[in-house]
């Protein structure tokens, strides 16, 4: 019994010392996971995930506080990528998140705009150009479609327009198999 205690104590003390040392010597700093998650998020910065932007959402996922299925702009594909990265199962959008919408850009009705600059302040990616009292315009190439500028406009001159399919952005479709009966 005594020898048992001695031996185990010896092992334990050694182990404890190693662990204690390790804890200080090799403290984890920063979380590289956040960057990886953030790289997957679409950077629309829309806040539909209930976090103030993509990075905070990424941080929350990394900390295990948020589910991976809360970003509508990322679509199911985004969820799949997050699931792959984190080694968890794919899950469909939760009931309370907005359904993913087709990609759109904001459009300012130039004749109504009063140049109030409120939308400029709302846009998270500086995609609206214009000076005070002058008409504002959306740089559509830089607009992420987050809709954050729509609400603040006092004259309701901003509308979201679905990006329509043109020859320049047309994509080849997935070939359909005649073999598989499509069950509805």
């Amino acid at each position, binding site marked *: *019994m005594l020898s*048992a*205690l001695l031996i*185990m*104590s010896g*092992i*334990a003390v050694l182990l404890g*010392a190693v*662990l204690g040392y390790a804890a200080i010597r090799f403290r984890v700093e920063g979380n590289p996971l956040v960057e990886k998650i953030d790289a997957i998020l679409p950077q629309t910065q829309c806040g539909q995930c209930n976090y103030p932007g993509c990075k905070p959402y990424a941080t929350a996922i990394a900390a295990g506080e948020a589910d991976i299925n809360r970003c509508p702009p990322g679509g199911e594909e985004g969820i799949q990528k997050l699931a792959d990265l984190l080694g968890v199962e794919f899950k469909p959008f939760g009931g309370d998140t907005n359904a993913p919408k087709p990609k759109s850009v904001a459009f300012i009705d130039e004749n109504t705009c009063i140049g109030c600059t409120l939308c400029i302040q709302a846009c998270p990616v500086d995609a609206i150009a214009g000076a005070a009292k002058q008409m504002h315009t959306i740089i559509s190439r830089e607009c992420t479609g987050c809709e954050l500028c729509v609400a603040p406009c006092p004259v309701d001159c901003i509308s979201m327009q679905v990006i329509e399919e043109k020859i320049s952005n047309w994509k080849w479709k997935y070939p359909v198999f005649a073999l598989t009966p499509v069950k509805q």
Partner: protein
Amino acid sequence: MVKAAFHTAINVLFFTVIGTTLLGVTYLQTKAPIERSEQEAKLKLISQLVPRQDFDNDILADGLSLTPDPLLGSSAASTSYRARKNGQPVAVVLEAIAPDGYSGRISLIIAIKADGTLGGVRVIEHKETPGLGDYIDIAKSDWITGFNDKALLPGKDDDWHVRKDGGQFDYMAGATITPRAVIKATHKVLQYFALHKDTLFAAAATEPKQEAKK
């Protein structure tokens, strides 16, 4: 830093000491029942070969360590147990190994009565093909009981083969390697017994660790 390490060490130490103590206590508490269970298990096995009513000694205490012998197929020392009634030898239980099973060694225990007939054979461990070669296992078939009461008869060595090879033992079609191995091993043990009969029964029940003379 050293302090933190120290703190962790103390913590682990604390739980280790408690755990070890608990284990020590458990060990002491279960030591006796475990020994009893083990002996019971052994006895149960032996009594399949030598009926309990046939002996009256403490058979497990009457052990004899045997040096390795080609006839036993063993490469390490093994123990034999002697059954006696009223001090008279009744039977000896030997461990043996059939090295040439289909997929490896087959461990056997073999009881030989004092008169040289087999009390019985049991397979303790084998790796033969399930469903084909494993009929030597009493749990699968009673083929192994075919050895009961067989003995070495002068000039009848040819009997110690499967029927296919001209012997007296049955086999299952499609798997003869396994029975051949078991029969051969048993045959050899009987030969060992014939050679060492006296030493096997000689020693008194007092000293189980005593070596058999060669």
